């Protein structure tokens, strides 16, 4: 509820931004955080909540930045609303970020986090604007109260105008799967989202229907969606926010068998005494419904004992980082005629015991124009405005957390 202070810390441990809402807390509280960070081997392993004698530190790790917030009292510890941002971007826009933070949290209580509103309150800088500003000295702070805040549809600003009225929907499905050693599926599930890009004038009222809405098992909605309409008719009815937003995310009911579009043949073995091992992986397409599997990338966290890897790839390129022990193989497109293969020798640290476990293979891939669950948008209707919008739907299937145990 009450965030006392916020520190932004980069990977090398510099605090490059701090913001206090109540009284000032010294930077030294972060020492507790650094301590914990040192203990953790991997950045991912830093405990999200650290309790110190006087404060609790909650850390969130995004894009190589730790957001460490300091709190003193009871909070619901889910605080997660920072968008994607990089360190340099923040440094470039320190003042704007600062103002944003000021708006977002009043006295440490989340105030306005709807990104569209924030954009109105503090207009994002553009090159043109900064030029204009430096000449006229005028402000880039919104003069008006964001109209949305007061209207009944807080996510949409009034008076939107476009010459081309367009509405695009991307149906993106991700396959989460765990494949075991023998190639059988331990666990597979389809998670999907519909991301929309809506550029429509006025106050359009859209309704989107599916050919097979029953597929959607568990759905979470953007607040603009009328829940009851979905409950009763399985139709998404909403007045959209302006621009890009995530309309829904869903999970496909688990009773359905998930078609796994790729298979992996692997032969990874380490020898006891020679301090070397063999590595041989082939990826092939399977049940891909006539679509090409592309953007295939395999990443493997090799055991600590691995010193180096001498591999040859029949397709694409591979890199092995001897520090993090991560092997990345960028395969690209899979053509069924010639299956991509990566093969070679693994050099182990001499003297070290051979690794107990073979590493898991994490696979990424993409299939355009296919929703693996078979979900299909039926139609999109618009009410409330007179013009004819241009509508488009795109389907993509991707690998989510797709892991092959070896």
């Amino acid at each position, binding site marked *: 509820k009450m965030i006392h202070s916020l520190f932004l810390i980069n990977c090398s441990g510099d605090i490059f931004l701090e913001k206090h809402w109540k009284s000032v807390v010294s930077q030294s509280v972060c020492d507790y955080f650094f301590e914990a960070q040192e203990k953790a081997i991997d950045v991912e392993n830093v405990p999200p909540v650290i309790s110190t004698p006087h404060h609790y530190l909650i850390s969130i790790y995004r894009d190589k930045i730790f957001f460490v917030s300091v709190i003193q009292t009871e909070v619901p510890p889910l605080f997660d609303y920072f968008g994607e941002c990089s360190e340099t971007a923040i440094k470039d826009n320190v003042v704007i970020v600062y103002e944003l933070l000021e708006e977002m949290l009043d006295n440490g209580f989340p105030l306005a986090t709807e990104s569209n509103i924030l954009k109105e309150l503090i207009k994002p800088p553009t090159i043109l604007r900064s030029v204009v500003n430096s000449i006229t000295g005028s402000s880039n702070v919104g003069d008006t109260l964001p109209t949305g805040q007061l209207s009944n549809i807080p996510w949409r600003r009034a008076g939107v105008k476009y010459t081309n009225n367009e509405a695009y929907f991307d149906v993106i499905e991700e396959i989460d799967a765990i494949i075991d050693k023998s190639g059988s599926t331990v666990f597979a599930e389809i998670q999907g989202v519909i991301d929309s890009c809506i550029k429509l004038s006025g106050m359009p009222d859209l309704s989107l229907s599916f050919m097979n809405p029953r597929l959607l098992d568990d759905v979470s909605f953007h607040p603009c969606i009328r829940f009851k309409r979905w409950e009763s008719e399985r139709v998404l009815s909403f007045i959209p926010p302006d621009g890009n937003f995530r309309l829904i995310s869903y999970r496909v009911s688990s009773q359905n068998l998930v078609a796994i579009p790729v298979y992996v043949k692997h032969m990874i073995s380490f020898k006891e005494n020679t301090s070397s091992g063999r590595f041989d992986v082939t990826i092939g397409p399977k049940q891909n419904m006539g679509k090409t599997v592309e953007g295939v990338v395999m990443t493997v966290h090799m055991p*600590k004992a691995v010193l180096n890897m001498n591999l040859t790839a029949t397709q694409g390129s591979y890199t092995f980082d001897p520090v993090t022990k991560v092997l990345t193989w960028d395969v690209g497109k899979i053509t069924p005629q010639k299956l991509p293969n990566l093969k070679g020798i693994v050099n182990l640290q001499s003297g070290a015991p051979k690794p107990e476990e073979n590493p898991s293979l994490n696979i990424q891939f993409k299939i355009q124009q296919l929703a693996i669950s078979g979900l299909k948008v039926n139609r999109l209707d618009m009410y409330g405005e007179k013009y004819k919008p241009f509508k488009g739907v795109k389907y993509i299937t991707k690998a989510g957390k797709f892991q092959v145990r070896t």
Partner: protein
Amino acid sequence: MAASPAYGEEKGGSSSLGEPEYGHDPASGGIFSSDYKRHDDLKEMLDSNKDSLKLEAMKRIVAMIARGKNASDLFPAVVKNVACKNIEVKKLVYVYLVRYAEEQQDLALLSISTFQRGLKVSWSEDPGEVWRSTEPPTAAASHMSPQDPNQLIRASALRVLSSIRVPIIVPIMMLAIKEAASDMSPYVRKTAAHAIPKLYSLDSDQKDQLIEVIEKLLADKTTLVAGSVVMAFEEVCPERIDLIHKNYRKLCNLLIDVEEWGQVVIINMLTRYARTQFLSPNQNESLLEENTEKAFYGSEEEDAKDAKAEAASLAKRKPYVMDPDHRLLLRNTKPLLQSRNAAVVMAVAQLYFHLAPKAEVGVIAKALVRLLRSHSEVQYVVLQNVATMSIKRRGMFEPYLKSFYIRSTDPTQIKILKLEVLTNLANETNISTILREFQTYIRSMDKDFVAATIQAIGRCATNIGKVRDTCLNGLVQLLSNRDELVVAESVVVIKKLLQMQPAQHSEIIKHMAKLTDNIQVPMARASILWLIGEYCEHVPKIAPDVLRKMAKSFTNEEDIVKLQVINLAAKLYLTNSKQSKLLTQYVLNLAKYDQNYDIRDRARFIRQLIVPTEKSGALNKYAKKLFLAQKPAPILESSFKDRDHFQLGSLSHLLNAKAVGYQELPDWPDEAPDPSVRNVEVCGAPWVHGGGGAKVPEWTKCTSREKRKEKVEKPFYSDSEGESGPTESADSEPESGSEENSSSSSSGSSSSGTEEEEEEEEEDSGEQSEDKEEEEEEEKRPKRKDKEGSHKAVLGRVGSPSEEEEEEEGAKKSKKKVLQGRKGRAETSSEASTSESSSSGSDSGSEAEAKQRKAPPSSKASSKEISLLDLDDFTPPPPQPIPSSSIISTSLVTDLEGLTLTDTSLTPTLLSPAFSAVKTYELLHRMAGEGLAVEYCFSRRPFPGDPHMVAVQIQISNNTDTEVKNLRVNEPKPLSGMRIQEFPEIEHLAPGDTASVVMGIDFCDSTQAANFQLCTHTRQFYVSIQPPVGELMAPVFMSENEFKKEQGKLMGMSEITEKLVLPEKCRSDHTIVQQVTSAANVGRVPCGASNEYRFAAKTVTSGSLVLITLEWREGSMAQLTINSEKMVIGTMLVKDIIQALTQ
């Protein structure tokens, strides 16, 4: 401050840099190296008349603040600019002020007048202001009070004023807050609400005045304010729960439209509120639970008595009826489970966990599992909560078991939490899958995680007795692992497991004794030593030897190991003093001069105790008792047990410690407080406003709409709820909207059809939208209908009315029930009003139930559809009645008095591939069934229609003197994954007649009972069928070679071996085969060797092989081996077969 040394450095550096860079972009990094000299420049810039220069300066200063550098010496220069007309400069000045006012109180006080003036500028109208002219007249600003053109400015002024933590301005703040609390603009009122806790933290003496403001703001009806004021309420006066009463329904109804963070706060507050105001919805269930427990342990006669007594007590007890307000809360929060905001979902989840009836809590599982896809921090929090919930409500997460499987890329803390959840979810059904997962985890590179997995296996082993041996064997195998940590952890866990049944495991203890040579981890060494000491009688030869070795290395051991060496020595001395006397003396002497005083003390103490001297006397006699006392086995339990006394989703829960400001979640009250406190008088909105009602605020429009709506609904009211009392109408406050109406007139809304519902929904989302819009909407609807010529839409429309009818029917039925109940209770007329309200309560409840009921059928339908497509399954044809030859004669059945009957001669031998005796079990005793007796047996035939089901033959005999009609299975409540194929309804069963039917049950390869209701036209009976493990399989025929091949695949953890002694009468081929096949539905596999018997079967559901080998050695000795990857089935089957053979 850390920054101060940096100044010196930068000073030097900057002099070389020289010129200040006026036109420089603030982003260029140059700003990060400001110094004293530049501060002068900044001051200069701030003093200039050009706004652009000022802005530039302020940007640099704010950047400095952001870097954590001290810019306090600029305070006077900055504060001057608080009156600056440029809004952006002003904003930055505000930022500065908020940061430094508290630190520099003196300076701040000096400048406070400047600042106040600045505030006044923004409070009063100033025609010269720059930004005003650029402001377009927006909808929001159009109905503005004349005092200020821009509510944004008013709000931000208030925000800054309240953020300046200078005690002396408290009175000014108080005044400003009061004024803002009755501002025209909801945005300003919201800011006022935010200012309240700030003022409170600055000066808690203001509490009473602030509570007044909170009370006023709580009555506010805009969604914008609701969240903020509840936040203020929670901060300032969470104990004043009485302030919520009048606003409770409004908050519930507004909830869905409040912004997300507001929702979180409100939901958490309402959880607490509900805990104080409503009765526990699970009180009846807890009673029921007691019943089942008793039934489980008690003998049958007792049961009958108990059942009667309890039925009486149940009847005496007033049936629980959920308060309609309680229901309202549950209903209105449920949609929020689909929120995109993880915090909201979590808040609703904890609300349901703490408030909902057990049967309804399940809905949150799905949403929580969804959150697991989120960032790892969210996962961490969610998993913590799931871990707690899964202890109490295991069934809820069972269907999602696989979602908790662990990936090698998960962070360690997530892995460990998932492991915790998996362990909590483990039961006899799924343990084999879970153990298989664990086997994968044990090989992980992440050693902490491996250690946690071993612990988890230990916990599974203690909780599920059937796999204890399997787990133990697996852990023993781990002892030869290469990694020392793994071995050590295994030792520690094995030690705990062995304590439960040490006698059988001397082999393992011996094995572990050998490990002392290799294992170096102190905890593991200590554990082994303790084990050997404790069970030295089981390893009489090895124990002294171990002591000898340890004595040798004593001085180099860690302290905990030394202590255990002493313990071992003492125990050996007592049991085997001949061999170990000298060794013990030696060890004690070493310990006497140890550096650690604990060890010295222990040595001295033990010497006194065990070595008999003249002085030691009394205690010495008891030494044996002291050291060799039976020690209770440790209980391995979850660290999340009992964590649910903290409100879930709270920080305190996360830390498992009370955090500052944590509000204890109160326990349910025993008696419900007066629900009428939540009634709100129907009058014009209690909106009183200082600033003259020039414009009608949007929410008052609702009332007019409401009137219209009421008009529309009148007929329904008068139609069905003619008797609805005055309390009812008082309940439905106008502003609570359509929700309230629909709940108070459930039958009305349900009969009005989808159109009605749509309208409701329309209204909800667009409560404030113009009437015109709605008219438009209505116009559109027919249009839409035309447009959507597709058959789908038509189908939808055709389909829905029938659903409605059902719903209506349901409502009616429940009403009837209520009426009956009322009759039965024979209430006096004076009680009529209360019963009325209760009936309305149950009505609204039943409505919700009806809704729920509506949902499951649809999902069921979908699953059926899917199975039609994917699994080429077809709905099984009604199973054929069993030929009459198999029917046990009626007279025999009537003679049964609670005995189970084994009648071999009557069962057809041709049916099952194995000739066997079919046991009959009782489903419903004649007495309990009021003359209806039901028995069942496992016919061992494949169930027609579904090969994954076990066919259960049911024999029903009517011993009453009237005809029994409409005999059928009702409401099967299968556990997760179980399926029941009901038998076709028996329409008539004449007195004295017997009917036999077959039903199919898919037990999912578990021995858990299938529960369902057996209904007649008058009565219904709860019954359950529990299959013996041997009936969960069907015989497979295979050759000897195949058998051996398959057996080879199922070694290790999947193999269970047990020795047994064959009794005299059971030593012929024939009897052995007969006994085995009677115990389990297996097929014999031909076997070359004599004295060896092999059987094979497949489990019915999953088709896993079960291979049985019985080796008959010389004399009466025999060894039974079962290979199956279903370890639970294997272990249970071993027991059953041995029992069959030895009896």
